[in-house]
C-alpha cells in the first residue's frame, strides 16, 4: 500500500496545496503540460501563464491525480516557477524537487513527473506562441515513463535507499 514517512514540507504541500486549479487552454499565453497515465496511477497537469513581453511566468496552476508525493511535487513546482523566466524554470531538475520535499526513494518517480510536466508546459506555451499549436486545440498528454527503471531509480536514490519497497495487502 505504501505510505512512507513523509517530510513536514511534503505534508504541508499535500494538506495545503498551492495553486490548485486550471487556466482555460484557449488563452494564448497559457502553457499546459500533462504527463503520466491513469494506468500508472499518476497524471499531472501543470499550467503556466506567461507575460510574453518579459517571458516571465506570472501565474501557475496544477491538478494532479496521484499519491501524496505527486500532489506535493506539482504544488511545489507551481510555487517555484511564479515570477521566474522560462529559461530559468526549464533548469529545474527532478532531483531539486526530490531534495526539497525529501522524497523517499520509492517516490522518486513523482519528482520526475513534476519536472517533466513543467517542461511540457513551457514547450506548449512556446508552441502556442510560434503558432505550432492553436490555443484550445486538443491536447495530447506528453510521453513520460511509467515508473522508472530499477537501475535508474536506485541511482537517483543514492546510498540512502532502494526504490523497491515492500508493499502488500495482507
Amino acid at each position, binding site marked *: *500500500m*505504501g*505510505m*512512507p514517512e513523509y517530510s513536514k514540507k511534503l*505534508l504541508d504541500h*499535500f494538506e495545503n*496545496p498551492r495553486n*490548485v486549479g*486550471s487556466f482555460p487552454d484557449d488563452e494564448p499565453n497559457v502553457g499546459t503540460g*500533462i504527463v*503520466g*497515465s*491513469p*494506468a*500508472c*496511477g*499518476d*497524471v*499531472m*497537469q501543470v499550467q503556466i501563464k506567461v507575460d510574453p513581453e518579459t517571458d516571465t511566468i506570472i501565474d501557475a496552476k496544477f*491538478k*494532479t*491525480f*496521484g*499519491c*501524496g508525493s*505527486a*500532489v506535493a511535487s506539482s504544488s511545489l513546482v507551481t510555487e517555484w516557477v511564479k515570477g521566474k523566466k522560462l529559461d530559468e524554470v526549464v533548469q529545474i531538475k527532478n532531483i531539486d524537487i526530490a531534495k526539497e520535499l525529501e522524497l523517499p*526513494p*520509492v*517516490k*522518486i*518517480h*513523482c519528482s520526475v513527473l513534476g519536472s517533466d510536466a513543467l517542461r511540457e508546459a513551457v514547450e506548449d506555451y512556446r508552441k502556442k506562441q510560434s503558432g505550432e499549436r492553436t490555443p484550445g486545440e486538443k491536447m*495530447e*498528454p*506528453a*510521453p*513520460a*515513463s*511509467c*515508473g*522508472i*527503471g*530499477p537501475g535508474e*531509480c536506485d541511482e537517483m536514490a543514492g546510498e540512502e535507499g532502494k*526504490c*523497491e*519497497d515492500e*508493499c*502488500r*495487502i*495482507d
Partner: protein
Amino acid sequence: MSLPCFLTMVMMYNAKCDMTVKTPIYLDHNATTPVDPRVLEAMLPYYREKFGNAASRSHPYGWIAADAVDKAREQVAAIIGAETKDIVFTSGASESDNIALKGVMEKYKSKGNHLITAATEHKAVIDTADYLAKAGYAVTILDVDHNGQVHPDQVDAAITDDTVLVSIMLANNETGVLHPVKEIGEVCEKRGVFFHCDATQAVGKVPIDVKEMGIHLLAMSGHKIYGPKGVGVLYARSRNPRVRPEAVIHGGGHEQGMRSGTLNVPGIVGLGEACELCMKEMDEEIPRLGKLRDKLEKGILDGLDEVYVNGHPTDRLPSTTNISFKYVEGESIMMMIKDIAVSSGSACTSASLAPSYVLHAMGVPDFLAHASLRFSLGRFTTEEEIDYTIERVKKAIVRLREMSPLFEMAQKGIDIDKIQWKQEHAH
C-alpha cells in the same frame, strides 16, 4: 468544551472533537487485529508461573504446559470441525501454507508433479508455488472471473493424472471474496487429489467445516482473529485421506514430525482462546459486521458518483469491502483520511508502479486499482466509527476530485479511456 472531550483532543493523534468517536479509527482488520483482552488474560500465566516446555515430560512444569496445548488444540479443532490430532501448531499462516505446498509436493512426488492454485491467492501461496515451479514442479495458476472467484469446473479441467495438490483460499484478503470451496473440495475428492485451503481471512467470519467442505489441509493465523502474532495452525487430515506433508523445519520431531521446534505455549493458548471466542460470538458477530459493512458501503455509494465495489456482491466476508473511487488515487485518499486506518491497492514503488495483482486478476483496470481502498471491519468497530468514516471519505473524495485533472476532463465530457496515454507499464 467538556473535559473528556478536551482530554481526547490532547491524547489522540489528529483528534476531532466528536464526543462519540475516538480517532484514529482502525478499519484494517484484514491486515491484523488487536489481541482481545480476554485472550491476553488467558496467555499471561504461560509467560509467568506456567512457563514450562510442553515437551518436558518429567515434571509438572512440562505437564501444565502440555495440558494447555492440548486444550488449545481442542479449541482450534472445534472452530474448523477437525480432529484434534490433525492440528499442527506453526508460526503463522505463511508457514502453514509453505508446509502444505512444499511438504505435500515433496512427500507425494511418486504420485505426481503437478500443483494447481489461483491468481488471487495470498503471496504465501503464490510465492511458494513460484518457488516450486523453479524447483521443477508443474504449476497451474487458475484465472478468476470478474467477481474474483475460481469455478469448480476450472479446477476439474485443470486436474491431470499428475496432479497432487489443489490450493485455493477460502476468502481473499483484499476483497473478502469467498471461493466456492465446498464445490472445489468435491471435485478434489472425486478426482483423488489433495485440497489445501488458506482460510486465514475466513476463520471466525464464516462457518468452516473441513469435513463437509472436503478440505484436507488448511492454514490459519492467530493475529487475524484477535489472537497473538507469530502463531498459526496447519490442519493436516490424518484419515480419509491421510495427508502427511514432509517437514520444512526439522529438529526434534515436535507436532508429529511435521513441525519441529519448542511450542510457543502462550501463543498457542492465546490462539485457542481466540478460536473459542470467535465460535461463541460468531452467530452475533457475523450479522453485526455485515450490517456495519453494508452501511459503510451504502453510505459511500449513495454519497458519491462513479464509485465501484470490487468483488462478488454477496459471496464475500461480512467484514470487508474493497471500493474504487474513480479519478482519485488510493494513497492520496489515505493521506486525506489519515485518522482512519485502511489499505489501498495502489502501487508504492517507483520501479514498477503496478497496482494490486488481485484486482488486476479480476479484470479491474489498473486505473481503478490505483483508486481502490480496502475497509476491513472488526470486533471493536462501532456504528459511530462507520458514520464518521462515511463522512470523512465523502469529503476527501470530493476534495481530491477537485484536484484531479482526470475528473476535470470527465466533467468536460472527455472520455479518458479514449485518450492515448503515452505510457503503459508491464505487469
